[in-house]
């Protein structure tokens, strides 16, 4: 499996601090990105529907406990034009797609902000929980 952890250093080189503001002032969504998990990472998956809310890309959880969490992307991922979705690891995700991604869910906003490339999460994108994406698994169970 291609690890985002191994991509992180490369991502850091090519990602500018202003990346967190991609889409600001345009039709594209805000696109917060984290600094990656250097040669390591959480061993979990997240699942749900990719949705856009107030210009923020969210993961709408599947199942009875409806919840939307702000998605925070690896440094090598980029938003598609016109905010139609995201691409990374050679895969495109479109709004409305049901997705199963490598990543973890966190509630500690301060800790999440510390891991961001660029400024803190914009107020319109604040949620109770945040999902840090690590990869698009090729062989999810």
């Amino acid at each position: 499996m291609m690890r985002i952890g191994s991509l992180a250093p490369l991502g850091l080189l090519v990602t500018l601090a202003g990346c967190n503001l991609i889409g600001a002032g345009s039709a594209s969504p805000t696109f917060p990105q984290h600094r990656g998990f250097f040669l390591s990472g959480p061993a979990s998956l997240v699942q749900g529907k990719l949705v856009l809310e107030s210009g923020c890309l969210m993961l709408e959880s599947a199942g009875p406990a409806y919840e939307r969490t702000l998605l925070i992307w690896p440094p090598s991922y980029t938003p598609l034009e016109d905010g139609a979705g995201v691409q990374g690891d050679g895969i495109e995700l479109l709004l409305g797609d049901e997705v199963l991604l490598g990543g973890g869910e966190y509630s500690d906003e301060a800790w999440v902000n510390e891991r961001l490339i660029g400024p803190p999460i914009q107020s319109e994108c604040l949620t109770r929980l945040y999902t840090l994406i690590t990869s698009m698994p090729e062989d999810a169970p």
Partner: protein
Amino acid sequence: MLRGLIPLALMFLSVSATSALPIGARDAVEESATATSDDIAIYATHHRISRSVAESELAELPRIAAMQTWLSTNSSETFGGIWISHDPTFQVNVALVGKQPGHAARLATELGIKAKVQQVVVEKSYTQLLALADDLRERRQIIDHVIRIDVRNNQVVVHALSPSSYIARADGQAAQLAGAAIEKAPMIGGPTVGIYAGLYASTCTLGWTVRKNNTTTDGITTAAHCPNTQTYLNTALPFQAAANGSADTQWHTTPGFTDEPRFKANSAGESRVVTSITPYLSVIVGQTICKYGQATGYGCGEVEEKEADAHWVPNQTGRYISLKRCNTDLSTEADSGGPVFFNLSAFGIVSGWQFGGLLCKDELVFASVSYMQSDLNVTVKLP
């Protein structure tokens, strides 16, 4: 078997819904279905009666069904239901609202019912019970209970997984106010299903079953960075609490499941009973420890370090343990939360992975059961 016969008898009924006593129905039901000989034998054996008595009782069923139909159609405001009892002998019980002396007996005579008929005075009509049950079903907020009508005791009964949780909600309060009996149901929808470490929830592997300290509340763990929304067999596992720091653990209650002190130990589904825990301080660098995760399955490695840098955990303290076996991929996405063990002892749960070095596969990083217990105020369930 008897339950199977009654609908069959009803199929052959032809009772006109008039206010007059259903004399015509008497002839109609005489020609009704006859139970097969096998059914009669089973009926006789079950009720410990002779075959001839069984045939006599079964022959009554169409007439009893006719009385039920007539009462529910023509006396819906006062009809509380009919049931057959067998102890000590075959008897037809007719529930009626208010005192109507001899009404059931007269009706039974008109219909040719020879069995003993007992008239029972009740407060609520069957129509009222049905209306209450329908109302409570419409109010249902969560599918964690079933609503039943107990015609024998003239009441609506709610069988809830957790009566206290049900009563705390608006739907439960409505049931309580309406006088429904609210009872604990050990399991809804089938036999008890066990839940234990190594099984797979929505997006992570389940860890050790635990009990909240100083309570009788049981549940199951997974990693804290796993989504709070987790399900097992399409049943939601309500999130309780999470701890980061040294624990990277959260726990969920498991309504409808039995929390078992065991863990899945290989992909063939074999499990072991967990009989002890091994605390952080007892772990030794170089010792062999095993794990089970949904993605990578069963595997073992040697303790590489006890101060792994699990920086994907908020406020982590560097008290994580890593396992390494150069040719074995010990951890990847979907493994988080899975049990880490050796023989029958619990060591911790999977947290993440880290680079295993050049030409080696990734190491597994796990949180010790010590921190899981102390930080979540729970205790791993043992037999």
